[in-house]
């Protein structure tokens, strides 16, 4: 895939003179396009130690003269590419060729891949965090939202979980630094506990690339990866700050790293706080967020062939849930929907977080060790432990506000051994096995019958991937088998209460075949087909009772069987020089025994009134759609992009539309770019249009209220960079929902109660040294 190396800068150093002269050394350089080998002008090269730089000329050449032997920090910049820093140890005159994938700005920073290839650019870890830096205030779900084929399912603005090709939660694996995120994945209101600012690269695998990873994915995988510690003996760091006018949100993130001979280290920390967001008409009372995250990474090169890495990250958040979205029964829900503004709306802004609120802590500890037998073969061992604590507080009677209504602890232990082997004849083999143990328990402090039972799951799996590169084609085949044993201890909902024990055993299979065929420089095709099974989750089997948040009685079914899915994706990519990029991806997923909540023809009487009953049922279903990504570089200064996502899904038997599928959407960005304005570099002005269509497939009887109308959002953003000696400063200002549009989104549960957030001015700054 072209999407493999966005913002690709590849460096080759060639010594052409061995006699060092005192302070008369020079670097002769040339910047060329990686694909066309055409020279690139106006790329800037800056030497921090000299506090001066140069710009490549018409034929891409540049020259830095009068250098003493020693170390130099060089900064290479080209519009659209992430600024790259290189430590240069100069002993002699050096010829330096900088390969820039010039067309790379035609690709998304958040890489969209259709195929999990092994040819990862580990040695070229210069993949930028440009896009993450542009949306510093966003959580993971929001950050991914603008990718074609990806959306977010939300409960208000603070809780967003990513949706890829219509699947989310238990059906989508999210890997945090290579480890499948282990937390409460069910429901609308549990967002992944990952700070995107700890990552430098987020990858969405849309096809069936999940063979290598443990988890229940029915296809897509999201990889959140921190950047490797740069092999750089000096202390380097970065500080980032953001401000949001809507909700008066502020956040800082600091990262420091150093590659010592005896130990490489990196630390990263984030602090965020925001208050009540505001729709065009009213404050969304109690929608503040507080968050503090921390990560530390240590890497030790034990021998030339053996590297060990330790990583710890901690994610901690407190999220307010819109006060007016807490309802007692169906009458309340209807009243809330008919009300002009949500109940309990305050006239004043506040940072206070009252009930209902969530407090979530997630800790990940990872130890990995990699041993290279040779350049072609290595083995890697990983151990990871995750601790996930979730407490949800409701509005309750008496002095029970500090008593959580839901309190779950989850502990998981993961072990993995992976073996890679590159044969000389272009074959590449990868095999491995994993074990995972998840212990989920309710902390008995709620005074409420738990919604999710206690359980202990043991998973064991193994995989094999074989890949081969031909001249014009890459082929990859993978298979995986996984056993899951789950022991469940739940509490009866009849009196006298007693403990009920269950045991489930499942065998899950995954197989995938991927093919990338390159017809020419300009045209390529990617086909991926995969089969996957997913066993029913605990909530689907054992839920029983009133889910007050959704005003319904949810009933699990202990007889549910596993889902079997076949997904086909086919994409065509056209790339015309560095001008035009078009990618069309079509996909179809057939899911046998798709598990979903079906409204029953039945109301159940409780003391709060009658509630509709929803039962987990199974039916054969299909989801299909199209993702279109086009980028056109009109000239040196103008770049325009257009993304379109179309998705549809239904039950095969009766054509009933599947609920909670994203609406179709169009996103268009037009940017005006200037490499240099006075002392400002990479000046960029953008205009962003987004249109989300009405979800018209849902019928009236499938939901309490009909899906909201389509909506249009307009945004602007201006960004620039500036260099002060060895400090680089980047910044942006922008406005989201510039027209202050009043709208609701189908995938946001808060739509029953309130409008979406109105106009928001954003400011972001990145300082790095």
């Amino acid at each position, binding site marked *: 895939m072209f999407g493999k190396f966005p913002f690709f800068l590849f460096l080759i150093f060639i010594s052409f003179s061995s006699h060092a002269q005192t302070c008369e050394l020079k670097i002769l350089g040339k910047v060329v396009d990686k694909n066309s080998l055409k020279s690139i002008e106006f790329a800037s090269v800056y030497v921090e130690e000299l506090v001066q730089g140069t710009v490549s000329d018409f034929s891409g050449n540049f020259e830095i003269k009068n250098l003493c032997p020693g170390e130099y920090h060089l900064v290479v910049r080209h519009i659209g590419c992430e600024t790259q820093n290189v430590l240069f140890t100069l002993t002699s005159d050096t010829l330096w060729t900088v390969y820039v994938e010039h067309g790379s700005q035609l690709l998304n920073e958040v890489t969209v891949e259709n195929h999990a290839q092994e040819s990862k650019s580990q040695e070229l870890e210069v993949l930028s965090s440009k896009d993450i830096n542009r949306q510093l205030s966003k959580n993971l779900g929001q950050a991914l939202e603008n990718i074609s084929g990806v959306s977010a399912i939300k409960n208000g603005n603070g809780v967003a979980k990513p949706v890829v090709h219509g699947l989310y939660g238990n059906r989508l694996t999210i890997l945090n630094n290579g480890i499948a995120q282990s937390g409460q994945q069910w429901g609308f209101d549990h967002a992944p506990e990952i700070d995107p600012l700890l990552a430098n690269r987020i990858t969405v695998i849309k096809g069936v690339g999940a063979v290598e990873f443990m988890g229940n994915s029915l296809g897509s995988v999201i990889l959140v990866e921190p950047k490797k510690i740069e092999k750089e003996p000096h202390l380097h760091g970065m500080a980032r700050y953001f401000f949001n006018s809507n909700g008066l949100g502020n956040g800082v993130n600091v990262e420091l790293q150093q590659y010592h001979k005896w130990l490489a280290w990196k630390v990263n920390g984030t602090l965020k706080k925001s208050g009540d967001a505001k729709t065009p008409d009213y404050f969304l009372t109690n929608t503040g967020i507080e968050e503090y995250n921390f990560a530390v990474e240590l890497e030790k090169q034990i021998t030339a062939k053996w590297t060990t890495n330790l990583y710890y990250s901690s994610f901690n958040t407190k999220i307010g849930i819109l006060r007016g979205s807490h309802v*007692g029964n169906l009458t309340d829900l209807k009243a809330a929907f008919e009300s002009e503004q949500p109940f309990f709306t305050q006239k004043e802004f506040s940072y206070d977080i009252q009930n209902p609120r969530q407090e979530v802590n997630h800790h990940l500890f990872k130890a990995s060790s990699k041993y290279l037998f040779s350049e072609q073969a290595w083995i890697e061992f990983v*151990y990871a432990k995750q601790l996930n604590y979730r407490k949800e507080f409701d*509005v309750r009677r008496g002095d029970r506000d500090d008593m959580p209504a839901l309190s779950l602890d989850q502990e998981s232990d993961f072990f993995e051994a992976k073996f890679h082997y590159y044969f000389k004849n272009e074959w590449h083999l990868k095999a491995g*096995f994993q074990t995972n143990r998840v212990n989920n328990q309710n902390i008995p402090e709620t005074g409420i019958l738990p919604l999710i039972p206690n359980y202990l799951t043991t998973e064991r799996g193994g995989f094999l991937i074989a890949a081969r590169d031909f001249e014009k084609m890459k082929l990859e085949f993978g298979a995986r088998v996984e056993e899951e044993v789950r022991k469940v201890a739940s509490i009866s909902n009849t009196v006298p209460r*007693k403990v009920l024990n269950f045991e489930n055993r499942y065998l899950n299979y995954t197989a995938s075949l991927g093919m990338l065929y390159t017809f020419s420089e300009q045209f390529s095709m990617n086909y991926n087909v995969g089969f996957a099974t997913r066993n029913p989750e605990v909530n689907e089997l054992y839920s029983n009772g*009133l889910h007050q948040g959704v005003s319904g009685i949810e009933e699990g079914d202990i007889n549910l069987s596993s889902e079997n899915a076949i997904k086909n994706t086919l994409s065509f990519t056209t790339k015309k020089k560095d001008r035009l990029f078009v990618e069309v991806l079509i996909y179809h997923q057939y899911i046998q025994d798709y598990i979903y909540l079906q409204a029953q023809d039945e109301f159940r009487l409780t*003391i*709060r009134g009658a509630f509709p009953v929803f039962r987990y049922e199974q039916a054969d279903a299909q989801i299909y759609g199209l993702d279109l990504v086009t980028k056109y570089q009109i000239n040196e200064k103008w770049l325009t992009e257009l993304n379109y996502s179309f998705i549809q899904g239904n039950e095969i038997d009766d054509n009933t539309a599947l609920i909670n599928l994203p609406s179709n959407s169009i996103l268009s960005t037009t940017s005006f770019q200037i490499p240099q304005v006075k002392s400002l570099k990479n000046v960029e002005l953008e205009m962003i249009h987004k249109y989300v269509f009405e979800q018209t497939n849902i019928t009236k009887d499938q939901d309490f209220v009909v899906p909201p109308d389509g909506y249009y959002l307009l945004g602007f953003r201006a960004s620039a960079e500036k260099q002060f000696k060895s400090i680089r400063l980047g910044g942006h200002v922008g406005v989201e929902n510039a027209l202050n549009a009043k709208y609701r989104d189908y995938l946001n549960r808060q739509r029953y109660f309130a409008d979406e957030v109105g106009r928001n001015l954003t400011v972001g700054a990145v300082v790095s040294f």
Partner: protein
Amino acid sequence: MKTKLLYVFLAMALFACKEDDENEPVAPVIPNEEEVITTVRYTLTPSGGGTVKVFQFQDLDGDGGNMPVISGDTLDLNRSYTGSLEFFNELETPADTITNEVLEEGDEHQVFYQNTSGDFVVAYTDTDRNGNPIGLSTTFESRTAGGLLTVILRHEPNKTATGVPGGDITNAGGETDIEVVFPVNVR
């Protein structure tokens, strides 16, 4: 060196693979469901004496599980009663009287009485610390027609909104803690 390391790794792998099927999940602690309301009882005592009428909604296992049991009663024609509304949690032994909790937080609660026939007249006789009605104590007048009486307990309603102090739920907002319907006969 290389082989030694490999042995270490293999040992780690085997260790990670060891059979741990005998492990069990943490035994759940059956919660003390002190907040649950299982029973709503509306007692009508006729003025001037006579048989006390009792209307009761009882769901002994809480939400879900078995169906609740609802019992109505028959009132006299054109009679005045003193109404008393009580809430219990019968999951506890002895049964816990939730009415006290509601009374203590009277300013955060209000009971609303609605009827289909319009032939019952319910009036509040109690007040919270702000002088607004709570609705646990009432007067009840029957006329000639029977019908359905709906009793609603709202948590954190807007007690000063238009009509609310008079018992009109329309502008009350808040969350419904209780909504039960009693059949009322008049003879």
